[in-house]
């Protein structure tokens, strides 16, 4: 299994695409921080929304703002690319049949590919957080943050540097773990098609559809089962000073997707005729 993981990691990490993604994940947070810095000189009411409005108070809060901005689309596309590509890229190169013409267990191969994709998704999330943190600390320094109340009806609160650091750590882990369902779905699609672009497109498409449907409140409790429903539950740590119960539910939903969809992917791949 370790040899398979090493092989899969080499194949995935040595692609030019991986370098481009890494540069994007470093460059984009830097641009966002520069933009936040430019806006803080403007009149207060034109200082952005939510976490972005607060981010200029401390570089420790910048990663939260950047995670909020990137987890809704950019990280979904990157995670979808890594997951959807896992099996389908080998198939599209025609290399999958050669891997499987050795005494290599299909289940182990699939788990190795999914594991490597998962590690790279975590690495991408951590990288975007670190890039934002470094850029934020350089421009804004490390300070406590005061979150104002709403219209004087709800009290504001302070977040110390230590609390911010801890919550950024938790947020990063939650966001990265929040892609577990996407990883399972991408791996499933990757076993179905031999075209990497199709698998990636289908994976990202499922998430975009999930986000659209999730925004339709008339769907009621059905939305609770969508993989993106609890995606932003971590933001209350910074906006409401609470560890939302929804974070726990979100983790449970992700685990459920991994178990059900992952099992389907394993069963499908194990029985699949390899024709590519």
């Amino acid at each position, binding site marked *: 299994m370790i*040899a398979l993981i090493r092989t899969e990691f080499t194949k995935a990490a040595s692609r030019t695409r991986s370098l481009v993604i890494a540069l994007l994940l470093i460059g984009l947070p830097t641009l966002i921080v520069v933009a936040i810095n430019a806006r803080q000189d403007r009149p207060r009411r034109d200082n952005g929304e939510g976490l972005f409005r607060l981010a200029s108070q401390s570089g420790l809060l910048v990663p939260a703002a950047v995670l909020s901005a990137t987890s809704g689309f950019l990280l979904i596309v990157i995670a979808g690319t890594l997951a959807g590509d896992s099996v389908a890229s080998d198939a599209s190169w025609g290399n999958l049949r050669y891997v*499987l013409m*050795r005494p290599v*267990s299909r289940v182990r191969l699939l788990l190795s590919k999914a594991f490597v994709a998962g590690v790279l998704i975590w690495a991408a999330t951590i990288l975007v957080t670190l890039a934002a943190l470094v850029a934020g600390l350089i421009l804004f320094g490390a300070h406590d943050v005061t979150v104002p109340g709403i219209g004087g009806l709800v009290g504001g609160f302070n977040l110390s540097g230590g609390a911010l650091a801890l919550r950024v750590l938790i947020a990063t882990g939650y966001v990265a773990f929040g892609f577990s369902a996407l990883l399972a779905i991408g791996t499933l699609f990757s076993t179905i098609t031999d075209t990497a672009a199709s698998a990636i497109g289908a994976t990202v498409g499922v998430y975009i559809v999930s986000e659209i449907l999730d925004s339709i409140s008339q769907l009621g409790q059905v939305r609770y089962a969508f993989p993106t429903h609890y995606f932003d539950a971590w933001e209350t740590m910074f906006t409401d000073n609470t560890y939302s119960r929804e974070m726990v539910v979100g983790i449970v939903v992700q685990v459920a997707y991994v178990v059900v969809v992952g099992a389907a992917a394993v069963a499908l791949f194990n029985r699949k005729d390899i024709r590519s």
Partner: protein
Amino acid sequence: MSDVIVEVEGVSKRFGEVNAVDDFSFSVERGQVYGLLGPNGAGKSTTLRMIMGLERPNHGVARLFGSPVTPSCSQLARVGAIVEQAAFVPHLSGMRNLRLWWTAGGAHMRDADLEHALAIADLGDAIHRKVKTYSQGMKQRLGFARLLLGRPELLVLDEPTNGLDPGEIREIRELIGRLTHQGATVLLSSHHLSEVEQVCSHALVMNHGRLVTSGTVSDLVGTTKSVYIEVDDRAAAHALLSRMPIVSNVQSQGDGLVMVMGDGRRSDVADALFHAGIRVETLMATQRLEDAFLDLLAAGDGAGDEPVAAQVPS
């Protein structure tokens, strides 16, 4: 003890409404160089994929070294294969591909026959270039290097010269020739009949997923109906043969005669000539495998769904 390396027994494979392989059986013994002949769509590649555990038969069983083939079965370690075209991770070098492929299964590089494999591939410094810069011929040679890493007892080669230019085809054929002379058991699928004729000791013909005939290559050629003879008295032989009911269309050709055999054997002709006092210098089937192949396929198509030829004894 029978040393059967490959055994396919009553195997069928359907894709939707299409019967790709239908109740197909054959076996390959150790040391044989076995050709799998058939037109495109005959079911050759599907058969080889089932032998390599890539596809599951709907019915029947494929065995390697006496044990049923399942995906990832241990016997695959004793087989080296090229199925359709050799394929690799394009953004890695040839050498990196070889190493990753070998170690992915948990094996150590020290156990691989890397030196021999690289000598066979003969890629020189190009082995360190990215595979996406290779020509198809170079990829095929690298494919041979990969399949030889494990010192396989059986080589499964599916259309190994497909898509290559004439120079590359010649290189690959010479390579297969060297490997067979080293004693490898080979199962070679091809629709290049001259390739099978040059390389193989045995062959089978399949069409529409079914066995048409099988046997030694010389037997297959021998089942054809055109016969060439050289005799000491050509005029007498022409007169005699023209009267024989099992012979038709006797014509002069070069120093001898060519005729078409009906229901009878070449030995019947030899006997008749001998008893007429005519000395026979040469008597041989004149068709090459290509003619035999086309005759067999035409006969097979004419016979509907039933196999048309009995198994030719090897």
